[in-house]
C-alpha cells in the first residue's frame, strides 16, 4: 500500500478553561482526544458529527490554525507539529482550508482581487500581470467572472462568496483541502452547485479532501470514506457505502436516523432516534464509552468502564452484536 498523504496519530487538542493564580491550567477542555486518521491521495474523507464534537478543531489543527497539544500530524511522512513556523510555511500552501462562514471569512475591506490574490502577495510568489492572470484564471475556474475582480464581498451572495473562498484556497495549488462545512451556510439550491464544483476541481487538480460536515445527506454523494466523530474521538470509520448500509456504532445509527428521506417507500424500519441528554462535560470525561449515557444499546458494566479502542472500524464494545439501521436499503 502506498504511503498516505496525511496521517494523524494520537492527536490531542486541549483548551485551557481556567487557570490558577500562577497561570497554570487547572481545568481544560478536551476538544480532540486521541484521533488517528489516514488520508490517501485523491480520496475524499468526510468527517461527520454533531456540533461541539471537535471536528472543526481537528480540521483547524491539520491546517495549522490551531496548535496540537500532543500527537503528530504527518504530511507525506513529515511531522507538521514538530515544525517551526518558518519550516512549515511552504507546507501551508499544500494544505488549505475552505471556511464555513462565507461572510466572516472574507475581509469586507478587500476586493476579490485582494482576497484571492493575498496568498500569492503575502509571500511574494507572484506580482503584476502574472498575479492578475492567475487570479483571473482561478476566478474563471470557480465560476466567477474576472470582471468582478474589483468588487467588494458585500456585493455577492453566499454561494458566490463560497466560490471566492474556494478560489483563494486553490490559487496556491494545494494537494489537500480541508473544507469545514463549506455548504452548511448556503441555500439548499446553491449547495449542489458548490458540491459539484468541489468534485470537478478534485478531478481536475487531483485534490484530496477532508470534508467536515454535520449533514450526512451532503456527505453521501461526495465522500469515499466517512469518519464519525463523537466527543473528540473517532467512533466509526468506514467506506461510505458500508457506513450508510450497515452502521456499526449506535451513534452513527442515531445520526442516520436524523437524515430526512424524501421517498416514504424507502423509509427504514427504525424511525427517528431521539438522543437523550447532552454531551458529557469535556473538562471531565466519563470512563468507558463517552456515548454510553445517551446510547439505547448501552449495557451497564460493559460500556462504562475502561478505554474502548477503535477496532474493525467502530469504537463500541457491542460492535457486531447489534443490528443497526442504515439509510441505504440493501438491494435484496
Amino acid at each position, binding site marked *: 500500500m502506498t504511503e498516505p498523504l496525511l496521517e494523524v496519530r494520537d492527536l490531542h487538542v486541549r483548551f485551557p478553561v481556567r487557570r490558577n493564580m500562577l497561570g497554570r491550567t487547572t481545568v481544560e477542555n478536551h476538544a480532540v482526544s486521541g484521533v488517528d486518521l489516514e488520508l490517501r491521495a485523491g480520496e475524499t474523507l468526510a468527517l461527520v458529527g454533531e456540533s461541539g464534537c471537535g471536528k472543526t478543531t481537528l480540521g*483547524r489543527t491539520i491546517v495549522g490554525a490551531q496548535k496540537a497539544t500532543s500527537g503528530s500530524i504527518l504530511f507525506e511522512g513529515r511531522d507538521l507539529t514538530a515544525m517551526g513556523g518558518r519550516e512549515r510555511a511552504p507546507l501551508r*500552501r499544500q494544505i488549505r482550508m475552505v471556511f464555513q462562514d462565507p461572510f*466572516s471569512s472574507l475581509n469586507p475591506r478587500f476586493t476579490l482581487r485582494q482576497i484571492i490574490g*493575498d496568498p500569492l502577495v503575502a509571500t511574494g510568489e507572484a506580482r503584476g500581470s502574472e498575479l492578475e492572470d492567475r487570479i483571473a484564471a482561478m476566478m474563471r475556474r470557480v465560476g466567477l467572472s474576472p470582471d468582478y475582480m474589483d468588487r*467588494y464581498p*458585500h*456585493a455577492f451572495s453566499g454561494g458566490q462568496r463560497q466560490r471566492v473562498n474556494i478560489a*483563494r484556497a486553490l490559487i496556491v495549488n494545494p494537494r489537500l483541502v480541508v473544507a469545514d462545512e463549506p455548504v452548511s451556510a448556503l441555500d439548499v439550491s446553491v449547495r449542489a452547485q458548490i458540491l459539484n464544483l468541489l468534485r470537478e476541481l478534485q478531478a481536475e487538480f487531483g485534490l484530496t479532501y477532508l470534508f467536515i460536515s454535520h449533514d450526512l445527506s451532503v456527505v453521501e454523494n461526495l465522500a469515499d470514506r466517512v469518519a464519525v466523530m463523537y466527543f473528540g474521538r473517532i467512533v466509526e470509520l468506514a467506506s461510505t457505502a458500508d457506513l450508510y448500509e450497515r452502521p456499526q456504532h449506535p451513534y452513527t445509527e442515531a445520526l442516520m436516523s436524523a437524515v430526512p428521506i424524501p421517498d416514504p417507500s424507502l423509509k427504514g424500519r427504525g424511525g427517528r432516534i431521539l438522543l437523550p441528554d447532552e454531551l458529557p462535560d469535556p473538562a471531565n470525561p466519563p470512563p468507558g464509552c463517552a456515548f454510553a449515557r445517551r446510547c439505547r444499546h448501552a449495557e451497564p458494566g460493559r460500556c462504562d468502564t475502561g478505554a474502548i479502542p477503535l477496532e474493525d472500524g467502530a469504537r463500541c464494545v457491542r460492535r457486531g452484536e447489534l443490528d443497526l439501521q442504515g439509510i441505504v436499503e440493501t438491494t435484496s
Partner: protein
Amino acid sequence: MSVANAEMKRTRASQRKLVWWAFKKHRLAYFSAWLLAAMLIVIALCEFIAPFNARHRDSEYTTAPPQVLKLWDTDGPDGFEFGLHVDGYTSEQDPRSLRITYEPDPEDRVDVGFFVKGEEYELFGLIPMDRHLIGPEDPDDPMYLFGTTTDGQDLLSQLVYATRVSASVGIIGVLLAFLLGIVLGAVSGYFGGWIDNTVQRIIELIMSVPSIPLWLGLAAAMPAQMGPVARYFIITTILALVAWTGLAREVRGRFLALRNEEFVTSALLDGSGHARVMFRHMLPSFSSHIIAALSLSIPGMILAETALSWLGMGLRPPAVSWGVQLQDASKWSVLSGAPWLLIPGICVVLVVLAFNFVGDGLRDAADPYKH
C-alpha cells in the same frame, strides 16, 4: 438605468468613497471640514497671510482698538471716493491715570491693499518674499484689523502665527499619541496574554495619574532657558505621552473582537506575518473610526496646550500660541478696556468645535453598510 448605475457605483466603490459620500450629507461637519482646510492653509502660508511679522511691534500704538476695513470714503477731500482703507488713530491721554487711549480717526486715511510690499520673510523657510496678502500701502502706517496688544503688537498677525503653533501642537501631538496608541493597542489586543496584561496595566497607571498636575510637573521640569522650538516639541511630546491611552484601549477592543474572525485566520493561513495581518488586514476594518477618533481628540490636545500656556507652564513669549495670547487677556483691568484681546479665545472655540463636528460626521459616516 440610473438606478443600475448607482448600484454599480456602490458595489465598486471603495470604503473611502462610501465614507466620503456619507460625510458630505452631514452639513455641519462638511462646513467644518472646509473651515479646517482654511486653517491648514493659514498654517502653511502664515508669513504671507499675516500683515506683519511675528516680532513686529509698534510702541506708538499699544492697546489700539480694531479698525474697520472700509471700501469707500465719504470724508475725503474729493467727497465720495472708492478705495480700500482703514481709519488711522488719534490718541488721547487721560490726565489723571496717564493712560493713552486710541480712537479711530475718520480724517486720517490709511490706504490698504492686497499683495502689498511689507516686511521681508521667507516662505516655507526657503523662498525670500516681501509681499503680504493684505497690509497698509505704506508699511509704516498703522493697520490693525483686530487691534493691538498691550505691547503694541498686531493682534491679527499674532493670531495667525498662534494658529500655526497651537493647531500644529494639537495635530502633531495627536499623531504621536496615535502612533503609540495604535501600535500598543494592536499588539495588546492581537496577542493577548501577558503582553495584553502588561500594556493594560501601564495604561491604567498612566490614566490614574491626574493629568493637569502631571502636565504641570513635566512642564515645570523643563529648563527655563530652553529655546521656544525645543519647548514646543517637548510640550507636544508631553501631551502625546498622556493622551495615547484612550485610543490604545479602543484599538485593543477592536483587535480583540476581530481576532476571532475567520478572515484573520485565513490571512494567517495565507502566509501573512503577524504585522501584515494586524496592519494590512485588520486595521483597515476600522481605519475610518480611527480617523474619527483622531479628529475628536485634537480639541483636547489644543485645549491642553492653551491651558498650559495660559498658566505660563507651556509656551512662553516670544513664542505665540493661543494660550500665550490669552495670558494678555487674563487681567480684568486690561480686558475691560480692550475686549478685542479675547479674539484668540473665539478662535479656540471655533477650531475645537470644527474638529468635534468633523469627528462626529466621520464617525457617523464610517459605517456605510449600516444603511
